[in-house]
């Protein structure tokens, strides 16, 4: 009698437990899926709808038309693309140098790593304000220039009369802020490359440059891909750093999105701008994934 009870408990419980075990992971995913559906996927679709509606809610190309005829639109596209083309490569090169210096075995690498990672915690607005204190007319850069006698009264770096200099100031501030992110990604990638590869290259007499070019960089490709995708998407959204330094003298896509929503009270045109940003981002991700496709033999290493 007792034996039978024990047997049935043993017989039933594992089945029920196994079933529960099969279903458990899906149950654990439900909250995340529901939340992301409601506050990520749904608004994305909503943006698509808004961009093709007039202010009354009827289907219309009016928002797209108003965006396209706005003289600031092409300017914003041009500035955003240029900014991305300048800032992203600068960040990748700088971050690569930083990670290679850290991995070269110099003394105090841990301290350098911490110092260089500090901008990770700084927002784009704060970064804009930091560099404003440097580039503004009576700021620190002009103070140095005048003190050293290099200039009489200083240079108006951020004046609308000097578009190139505004652009460079924004590019410097943006590079300063977000290089740390690229560095951390590349550093993580460098860590998983087995040391034996570099040693083998050395045995065969490769110079430092040859080793970096033909061994490290190809193996770092997956990390470079991730860094490029993330950074480019963030560059397309550059916003507060631009406004803090240049007000609206350097129109960019995210800034125009804000201007249409906040100042001009037109969510439809704002959504159209948002859509342009999304198209750019997706196009870029596609290009990077194709251009930097990881070959099969490399998958095993990463």
């Amino acid at each position, binding site marked *: 009698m007792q034996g039978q009870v024990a047997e049935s408990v043993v017989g039933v419980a594992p089945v029920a437990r196994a079933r529960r075990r099969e279903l*458990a992971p*899906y*149950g*654990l995913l439900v*909250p*995340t899926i529901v*939340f992301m559906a409601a*506050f*990520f996927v749904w*608004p*994305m679709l909503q943006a698509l709808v808004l961009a093709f509606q007039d202010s009354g809610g009827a289907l219309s190309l009016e928002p797209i038309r108003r965006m396209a005829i706005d003289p600031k639109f092409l300017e914003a596209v041009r500035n955003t693309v240029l900014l991305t083309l300048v800032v992203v490569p600068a960040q990748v090169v700088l971050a690569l*140098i930083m990670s290679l*210096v850290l*991995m070269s*075995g110099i003394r105090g690498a*841990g301290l*350098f790593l911490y*110092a*260089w*990672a*500090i901008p*990770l*915690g*700084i*927002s*784009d607005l*704060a970064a804009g*304000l*930091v560099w*404003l*204190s440097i580039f*503004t007319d*009576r700021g620190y850069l*002009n*103070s140095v220039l*005048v003190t050293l006698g290099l200039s009489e009264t*200083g240079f108006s770096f951020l004046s609308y009369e000097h578009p190139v200099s505004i652009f460079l100031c924004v590019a410097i501030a943006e590079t300063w802020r977000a290089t740390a*992110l690229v560095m*951390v990604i590349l550093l993580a990638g460098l860590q998983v490359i087995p*040391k034996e590869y570099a*040693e083998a290259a*050395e045995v065969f007499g490769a110079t430092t440059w040859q080793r970096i070019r033909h061994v490290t960089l190809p193996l770092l490709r997956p990390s470079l891909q*991730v860094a490029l*995708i*993330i950074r480019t998407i963030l560059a397309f*959204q550059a*916003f507060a750093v631009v*406004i803090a330094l240049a007000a609206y003298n350097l129109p960019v896509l*995210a800034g125009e*999105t804000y201007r249409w*929503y*906040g100042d001009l009270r037109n969510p439809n045109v*704002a*959504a159209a701008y*948002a859509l342009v*940003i*999304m198209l750019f*981002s*997706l196009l870029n*991700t596609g290009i990077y994934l194709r251009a930097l496709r990881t070959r099969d033999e490399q998958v095993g290493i990463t």
Partner: protein
Amino acid sequence: MSAVTLPETSGQTPGKLVEAARRSPRTRWPLYLLAGLLTFFLLFPIYLITIAAFSPRAALFAFPKPLIPTEISTETLLFFLNSRGVLGSAWNSALVGLITLTLSLVIGTPAGYALSRYAFRGRDAFRMLILTTRAFPIVILAVPLAVSFIQWGLYDTVFAVALVHTALALPTTVLITSSIFIAVPRDVEEAALTLGCTPIGAFTRVALPLALPGLAASSIFTFVLSWNEVFAATILTVVNRTLPAQVFSSLSDSPLPYRFAGGFALIVPSLVFIFFIRRYLFNMWGRVTR
């Protein structure tokens, strides 16, 4: 969850010895010069905003300004903090950050746990979906959500901003928590099960306490993300601004001392938090992005 392992100068492996012998100290000075220049570029601007925030207002309008302050004062900083809306918005920022980290932990931790502990159909697809969210710019969430929040009566509330920030932070939270639970040995949890714990008991009494330091670091990370977010916070609020939204929306009509002190005030909490999680930071980014 150890820190990044950087190579040491006095390594013991033959490879390192070869390397050390090949690179004599004489040829290594360019590396140190490079490291010094990079440090200058990355840290000097922070020094400048700090002395700007601690200069009296008169000194901020002086020209040319000295690079070593002649006078230190809290006048500029106090002027900023006492400006209308600043303290209230700082409080809002803290609230938004706390709600965001609570929501993303409560919603994201189960998913992260599932990814790390169960092999189930669709696991890789879910992981891919979570990673894919990064290919979509966050900027485009804010405008349609503002329209929806107005309809739902949530517009211009701390909670609405926290919801958007949670949507930003959740994918990262899921990936980070999953990497944290991978680091918690499975055996101890199974031992608890064989000793009579329920699966939930094994999770809360064994896995959770072991994962706690990592989860705390992940929460700080989420908080900083929320604290720093400008675009959505500015679009979704009118009166109940967060600190970045408040500073941003008053940029055009505020004097330079306000902006410098504002820049400094925005940086300080992030620096403190980053300092506390510096050991975890690299690991988190490293694992998430790999």
